[in-house]
């Protein structure tokens, strides 16, 4: 080898040898001299570690959490979030159309047309032609806004300062496979290489039995809220009914990591971390009984539409409660008029009424319990006799107390069966003012149901009924007598139901609307209140129960004889001894929304079944602005009794379980017994990447 060659080789290999020396030096500079961190542009230090490198390589998308699911007592879904896509597109104007603006507008029109066609790509869709036109109009408007097409000249080249790319919403709630495929086909396609589609997670709230559950399950509304970062967020919250419960709010979002190629296309996705699962709220409602309640109440309320023109209810409410637990099994509401269902109050806990005679068993039960009443004593209920004159009229009451039929000597049992106002007043006058206050408190009249339902009406006695300055004589002449037959106080149907549950079980009893909560796959029971003391003596309850049982009989003076005859005629069932109850009819002045006052007639009924050992309790009220011939026994009793009979029938059968469950996230879960669908890793929460949270909109 010549000396020149040897030198060249040494120089070449020497240079190569410098490379590792340089790398080692650089490593030392970064890891030792710079002490393991470098500064970002904003001054924050970035640790130079493998974890940082990994973190910067990965990108993260947020998986939004769904709202919780509401199910009935048998697991049938009443409300659930179904996963859908919110599709946005980002389109750059191609060079060709930018160079010649005469081509741009037709190009946009073609694009809009294609997208609109993609949105109706499913041949199973109804009214595709109408939908297509609607989409086309909306997309054209969105594209115009995004590109500010109005500001572009008709011809020539693209202005340098004008925005070249447009980002606009294509559609929300996309859930049809054909549509998804059609839209995906445009993503960076050969025809539209500058168009990228973003499929973001979204949810659609579904109510499989909407007509049955408007008020009690409630509904959600979405509101735009400003983010601290300057963006806008669309927040969906429940506004009434069970939907308003905070536990149904979407929990923390999940995260999913992915890598992106040079064109920012995601090409690898890791599993979802902290997969969001909505809570499952197990309500006490029974879908089948709810259906029956809605059907019976609606049928009765709308009866007058067909056979008594103008003489039908203004509103109605019906609720069914399991006495042993206080579980609300069904709650139905009906209102006259064409107002949207969401705009109507939910009568069982929002509409107040003067309960009328349905409180008489409560009054007599209380009086018997506190020793103010002898169940064997007879009361002279004839308004022409001296007892009435001496005890009632002598108090100077402005309005006379009257019965709808003349009664004579009545025991407390007879007072309930005949629904004698005079008899009830005579009993009520045995109670002192503190006892009446205790009566209101004990039965929860004027107190919240404690179910945390927004917009609940509380009612109660008149605010001056127990005022200190009201003299005892005046209180006895007016309030005590009025309270005895359910006047000078208002209550909701559910409050009346709770009052009866308290009479049967104990004054500490409460209604229950939620049986349990399923959080992260763990079931948390909401136990029925066990300590319901103080309770009435069994002989008190039995006396009231027997009297109420005789109300629903064919006795000529029994106020429940109409429903007895009707059910006997319709289905051959003898209600006497099977169903107990009490009718009520009250005529009340009511202040209307426009400030005027009108006289309303409340037909009410409270019933229980079985009569010898009450298990279920139904309360029904219909209010009418037709003052005459609107009685509790005729209008309110039939729906309540039919619901109780339906309840008995259903409980005799096996509970109707709906095996197939539909839960949040659009996952269809077939739930055979013993199979836990919430095993780790089975959440199914993950989807395409390259998307943000759909509820966040720009």
């Amino acid at each position: 080898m010549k000396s020149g060659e040897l030198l060249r080789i040494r120089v070449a290999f020497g240079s190569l040898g410098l490379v590792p020396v340089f790398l080692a030096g650089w490593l030392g500079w970064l890891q030792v001299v710079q002490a393991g961190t470098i500064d970002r542009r904003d001054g924050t230090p970035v640790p130079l570690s493998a974890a940082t490198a990994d973190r910067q390589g990965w990108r993260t998308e947020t998986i939004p959490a769904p709202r919780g699911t509401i199910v009935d007592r048998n697991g049938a879904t009443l409300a659930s979030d179904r996963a859908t896509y919110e599709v946005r597109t980002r389109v750059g104007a191609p060079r060709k159309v930018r160079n010649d603006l005469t081509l741009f507008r037709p190009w946009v029109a073609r694009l809009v047309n294609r997208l609109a066609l993609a949105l109706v790509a499913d041949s199973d869709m109804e009214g595709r032609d109408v939908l297509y036109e609607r989409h086309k109009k909306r997309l054209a408007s969105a594209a115009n806004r995004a590109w500010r097409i109005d500001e572009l000249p008709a011809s020539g080249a693209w202005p340098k300062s004008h925005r070249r790319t447009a980002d606009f919403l294509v559609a929300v709630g996309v859930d049809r496979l054909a549509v998804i495929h059609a839209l995906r086909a445009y993503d960076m396609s050969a025809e539209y290489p500058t168009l990228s589609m973003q499929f973001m997670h979204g949810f659609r709230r579904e109510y499989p039995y909407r007509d049955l559950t408007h008020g009690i399950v409630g509904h959600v509304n979405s509101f735009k809220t400003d983010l601290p970062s300057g963006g806008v967020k669309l927040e969906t919250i429940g506004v009434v009914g069970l939907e308003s419960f905070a536990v149904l709010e979407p929990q923390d979002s999940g995260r999913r990591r992915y890598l992106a190629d040079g064109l920012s296309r995601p090409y690898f996705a890791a599993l979802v971390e902290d997969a969001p699962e909505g809570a499952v709220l197990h309500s006490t409602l029974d879908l089948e009984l709810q259906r029956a309640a809605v059907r019976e109440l609606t049928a009765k309320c709308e009866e007058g539409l067909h056979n008594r023109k103008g003489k039908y209810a203004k509103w109605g409410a019906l609720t069914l409660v399991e006495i042993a637990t206080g579980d609300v099994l069904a709650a139905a509401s009906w209102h006259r008029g064409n107002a949207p269902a969401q705009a109507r109050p939910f009568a069982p806990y929002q509409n107040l009424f003067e309960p009328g005679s349905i409180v008489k068993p409560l009054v007599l039960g209380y009086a018997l319990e506190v020793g103010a009443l002898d169940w064997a004593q007879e009361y002279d209920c004839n308004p022409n006799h001296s007892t009435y004159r001496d005890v009632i009229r002598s108090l100077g009451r402005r309005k006379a107390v009257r019965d709808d039929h003349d009664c004579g000597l009545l025991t407390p049992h007879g007072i309930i069966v005949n629904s004698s106002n005079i008899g009830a007043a005579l009993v009520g006058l045995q109670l002192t003012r503190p006892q009446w206050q205790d009566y209101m408190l004990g039965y929860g009249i004027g107190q919240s149901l404690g179910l945390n339902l927004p917009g609940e009406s509380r009612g109660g006695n008149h605010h001056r009924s127990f005022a200190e300055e009201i003299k005892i004589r005046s209180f006895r002449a007016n309030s005590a007598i009025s309270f005895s037959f359910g006047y000078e106080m208002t209550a909701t149907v559910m409050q009346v139901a709770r009052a009866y549950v308290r009479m049967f079980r104990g004054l500490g009893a409460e209604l229950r609307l939620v049986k349990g909560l399923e959080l992260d796959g763990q079931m948390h029971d909401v136990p029925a209140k066990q300590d319901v003391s103080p309770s009435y003596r069994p002989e008190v309850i039995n006396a009231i129960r027997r009297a109420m049982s005789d109300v629903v009989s064919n006795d000529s003076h029994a106020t429940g004889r109409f429903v007895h005859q009707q059910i006997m005629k319709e289905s051959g069932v003898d209600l006497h001894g099977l169903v107990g109850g009490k009718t009520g009819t009250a005529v009340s002045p009511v202040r209307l929304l426009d400030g005027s006052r009108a006289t309303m007639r409340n037909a009410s009924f409270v019933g229980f079944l079985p009569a010898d050992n009450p298990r279920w309790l139904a309360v029904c009220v219909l209010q009418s602005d037709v003052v005459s011939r609107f009685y509790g026994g005729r209008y309110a009793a039939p729906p309540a009794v039919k619901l109780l009979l339906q309840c008995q029938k259903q409980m005799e059968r096996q509970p109707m379980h709906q095996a197939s469950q539909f839960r949040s996230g659009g996952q269809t879960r077939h739930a055979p017994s013993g199979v836990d669908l919430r095993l780790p890793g089975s959440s199914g929460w993950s989807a395409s990447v390259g998307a943000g949270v759909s509820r966040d909109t720009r």
Partner: protein
Amino acid sequence: MKWLIAGLLFALAVGLAVGTAGIRAENVVARRTVEQQYRAIHDRKKELGRLWFQRLQAVSPERLAEMHNHWLQKESQRRQGRVQ
């Protein structure tokens, strides 16, 4: 001899580089395929959710009663038409 070994080592280095790049490219393709399948599954899940809800609605007693009523009305109209 030493030049032969150097050449072979160089060829090995180039082969390793090409092989590694190839495997990485395969990985990228495979990952992208997995991602596409993953997306396709979730697209189908959305469709499944929709169909489940649609079917549930279709078989509710109210809907069935509505359909039954509709059929009865059609039948009634058909018979009336036949009588006329």
